[in-house]
């Protein structure tokens, strides 16, 4: 048996009390901080889990923040678009009322439209936290020019008013029936040669009913700036003999703004005039007859005359001048920058910023949706870009600006045709804006759902972190109690042992 030496006994008791005290201190620290561990190491293998969970919670919170910011922006964008759309509906209804029910309404179109335009411009220039929402990637650039500048120009730069006027002038000055353009190149044929493909009327195609007449067209060899798509340079009608009564050729004529007119010339016994085209911009049919004469040559002569007369009548119509002005607005609001009439008045050129107000100054990258992107989850990126210059909103601004730029003048008919176009454009755009809103709405829902998902996950994960890291106060308290008792007992035993020495019993 090994005895117990004094120093051994002292060492042992010292060690035991030191151990107990340090355990007690640790437990008291846990009660104070509420946490199990003071370092990552003390969490042991769970350290990795708790760290990963904490990182996930941080990620989720970051995603929630992004999502909420994105949601706010989308909400403001929706509100802006709703306001624009309301303006469009108002414009459509006002134009319809003014024209179909009561011409008295015409003079009020301009001031109302100006108010709507101003509102729409303000909406499209909306900022959230200093960021323009409809400017694409150039979020620091005010996307849409002031309504006043759009209408009246700024300094030397022309506004819509002047661009429309110049365009209308150029269209009205271009006569497709001018000398040398509609001819009988041979005795039994008719030819229409369009010398100015950009302005005035244009021919998009032609067909015949068979029989003696054959209509062909030749596409434009060159395509000058601003030429309507599919414009034909030459229309040829050849006659193989006298056409039978009822044989016809149909020519697809385009007004300057692209409104389609199907002009049908039918072989008959006399030349009749065409009716004036309707004022609106929809496709419409016009017809006339021509004297089929006695042979191919005489039929060709009267056909040439009938064609010339019919085209001249269309050119002189109110619909034509309305369409010309409307096309001026199309030029001004063209995707890719405004077009203006060149110095000679015979063609269109891209207008520089010093020549003409550019109504949209933002980003013009073809990827419109991708201009605004939000990373709302790991690997989850939502595109929610809507730009002021995308077709739907461009049309909206255009239709409002058109009406705001023009008051009813002397040419009431022409104005009516013009206003009708603005109204039609507004009416057609309402639903397209709704579509954009719908698409954005889907993204809004997605973002809202994602936020909810992240919130749920963050809550769960935070709880789990707490489970791993937090000390169970009841358990710790119990442990402290135990340690205290142990320590007290040790002290008591130490005291007893001190007394338990032979020395005390020696006399």
């Amino acid at each position, binding site marked *: 048996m090994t005895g117990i*030496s*004094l120093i*051994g006994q002292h060492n042992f008791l010292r060690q035991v009390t030191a151990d107990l005290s340090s355990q007690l201190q640790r437990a008291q620290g846990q009660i104070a901080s509420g946490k199990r561990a003071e370092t*990552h190491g003390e969490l042991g293998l769970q*350290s*990795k889990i708790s760290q990963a969970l904490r990182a996930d919670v941080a990620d989720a919170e970051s995603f929630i*923040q992004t999502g909420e*910011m994105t949601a706010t922006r989308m909400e403001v964008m929706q509100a802006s678009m709703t306001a624009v759309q309301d303006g469009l509906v108002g414009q459509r209804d006002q134009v319809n009322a003014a024209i179909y029910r009561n011409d008295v309404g015409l003079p009020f179109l301009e001031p109302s439209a100006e108010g709507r335009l101003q509102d729409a411009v303000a909406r499209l220039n909306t900022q959230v936290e200093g960021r323009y929402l409809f400017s694409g990637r150039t979020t*620091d650039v005010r996307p849409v020019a002031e309504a006043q500048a759009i209408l009246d120009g700024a300094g030397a730069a022309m506004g819509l008013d002047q661009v429309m006027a110049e365009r209308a002038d150029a269209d009205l000055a271009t006569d497709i029936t001018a000398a040398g353009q509609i001819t009988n190149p041979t005795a039994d044929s008719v030819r229409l040669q369009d010398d100015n493909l950009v302005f005035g009327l244009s021919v998009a195609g032609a067909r015949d009913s068979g029989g003696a007449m054959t209509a062909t067209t030749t596409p434009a060899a060159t395509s000058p700036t601003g030429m309507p798509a599919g414009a034909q340079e030459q229309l040829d009608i050849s006659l193989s003999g006298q056409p039978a009564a009822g044989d016809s050729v149909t020519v697809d004529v385009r007004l300057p703004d692209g409104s389609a007119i199907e002009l049908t010339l039918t072989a008959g016994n006399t030349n009749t005039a065409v009716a004036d085209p309707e004022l609106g911009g929809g496709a419409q049919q016009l017809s006339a007859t021509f004297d089929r004469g006695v042979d191919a040559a005489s039929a060709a002569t009267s056909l040439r005359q009938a064609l010339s007369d019919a085209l001249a009548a269309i050119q002189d119509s109110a619909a034509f001048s309305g369409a010309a002005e409307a096309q001026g607005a199309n030029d001004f609001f063209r995707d890719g920058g405004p077009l203006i009439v060149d110095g000679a008045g015979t063609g269109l050129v891209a207008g520089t910023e010093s020549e003409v107000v550019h109504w949209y100054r933002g*980003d013009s990258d073809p990827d419109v949706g991708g201009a605004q992107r939000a990373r709302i989850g790991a690997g989850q990126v939502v595109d929610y870009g809507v730009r002021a210059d995308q077709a739907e909103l461009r049309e909206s601004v255009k239709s409002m600006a058109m009406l705001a730029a023009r008051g009813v003048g002397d040419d009431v008919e022409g104005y009516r045709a013009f206003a009708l176009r603005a109204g039609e454009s507004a009416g057609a755009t309402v639903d397209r804006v709704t579509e954009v809103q719908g698409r954005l709405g889907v993204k809004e829902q997605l973002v809202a759902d994602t936020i909810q998902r992240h919130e749920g996950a963050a809550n769960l994960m935070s709880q789990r972190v707490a489970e791993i890291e937090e000390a169970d106060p009841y358990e710790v308290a119990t442990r402290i109690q135990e340690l205290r008792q142990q320590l007290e007992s040790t002290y008591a035993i130490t005291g007893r042992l001190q007394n338990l020495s032979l020395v005390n019993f020696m006399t």
Partner: protein
Amino acid sequence: MLFTALNNAFSGLSAAQQSIDVVSRNVANASTPGYTRKTLPVDNAVLGGEGRGVWTDAVRRDVDQRMMQQLRTDLSASQQTGVVADYLGRVDEMFGRPQDENSIASQVTRFTEAFQELTTNPESASVREGVISAAGETARKLNDLSTQIQDMRAEAESGIAASVDKVNHALGQIAELNEDISQRQAQGRSTADLEDKRDQHLEAVAEEIDIRVIDGGEGRSLVFTPDGSSLVGRGGARPLNFDQRFEINANTEWSRDGTQRQVGTITLGQDGNAVDLIGSGSLTGGRMAGLVELRDELLPQAQRQLDELAHQMATRLSEHTVRADAPTTTSREIDIAGRIQSDGDQIEVTFTNGSVQNRFTFIASSEPGGPASNDLTARANDTVFTFQRGASDAATAANLAAQINAAVAGSATTAGSTLTVQDSGGSAIQAVDARFTLTDTQSGNPDRLGLPVFADMKAGQVDYTGSVDGQGQKQGFAARIALNADLIANPERLVLTTGTTATGDSARPLELTRRLAEAPTTFSPATGIGGSGRPQTTTLGGFAREIVSFQGNQAQSASSRAEDRAAVARAIEDRVANQNGVNIDEEMNRLMEMEKVYAANAKLMGLVDQMFDTLFAIKR
């Protein structure tokens, strides 16, 4: 006969006195550490074949040497594990309390979040500043951690020096005591107290290094290292030498080669036949072994982990990868101009041979190319070569082609700076990728979204391209990583890849966030995290968390190992103390016994005196 009785009684009296003297010394030293209980050996004194009272020998101590050796071995192990646990505990503490989220992993998360915020507000100057400051904070955190680790290495270095001093002092004392003991023993005098002293010095040595002690005869204790190098011989002590270095940083390492070595090493013996105890692996226990392990293995490993994180973070953000075109199904073509610009830029080539995929990585270098260590890339199962960057792109391409041909003969050709790799022999070309570092904050190309957010503060700012020349740019990068000064001057370049990029373009922030938060990255197994066959592939944040957990677990297991060893050492210490220490009761018992003996002897002497008196009275 009476005289004999008187002498006997007197010798008993004297022995009792000496015993009481020993008892009193024992009691007085009962709580002196290292003091062992002394005994006075007494024997029947025999003179001419007849008992002549009691004979006392020199005071002795009764110590079990086997147990003392066990104690020393356990002390060595306890000190070794203790110092390791202490240092590693400090590494664990560097990452802070879990709930405070101030570990490097939390910092990487905050950096990622700052970028995430930039994706929604690319045009915001304050958000850009937020990213800049988070990036700077991340770099500083890595610098701080590196500094702390290197400070600890420096501390270990001076700890080794102190330890060597302590050992040398103790060895000197042991040698001296050996001589004293041997002399006193020859004179038949007590050596017990000197032996106690010597044991204390041996313990002191054992705390620092693991030793073996053998009895060298004539009272001498000879001290050896576990592999048999003598520390204290018959001729005296052989001191340890340590050439302490005072500049310790991430790039100073121990090496077997003296010319390469930049930290101190421990040698034994003189110049010509000096033995390097670190190189020979003789340090198997004690504080010294723990400190050496910390300085050369454990702390450098922590540094390597930080370096890897810094390296991957800088590289991930700044790199750009271009895949070679495939003009035909059997060839790949890539123009390396503008793609191999810096040391460290890489060309990855994959061939298949039957169903076996052979992956090669060619790393641009300033030095002549050739086969290189496969540890240079974290990519698993690739064969690594370096190639020298030439004076022109065409020369570089030619050097690259030469190395590709060294890997797969006849597969590569060049025309100017254009490299063509094609099928050769059984090897069919699968892909050629150029992976290179963008060094300009404005890449000038909207498709090149990478951004050198970080730079290397070597001596002034240099680009971090992951060069593998020399020690490699990665080593110690965590200590030098800094925010690119170009970005501090032009924070808008966090968004703008070209001079004409729209200010609200989120393409770059989105890509960089993806790289930080989502892109899986393969981390070098040299960090001790992940194996070489299947290296750890995770996100940057994930790896940072791995580091924190790794260090935490390592500290925790070191601590529990140290506790175990300490408990073992304590147990044996208790046993030694109990066996060799003083038990007061026992001593009191002895005291009483001696009192009785003394009294009896005194009484006896009194009786003899009376007997003499009686005798003398008869004569009268």
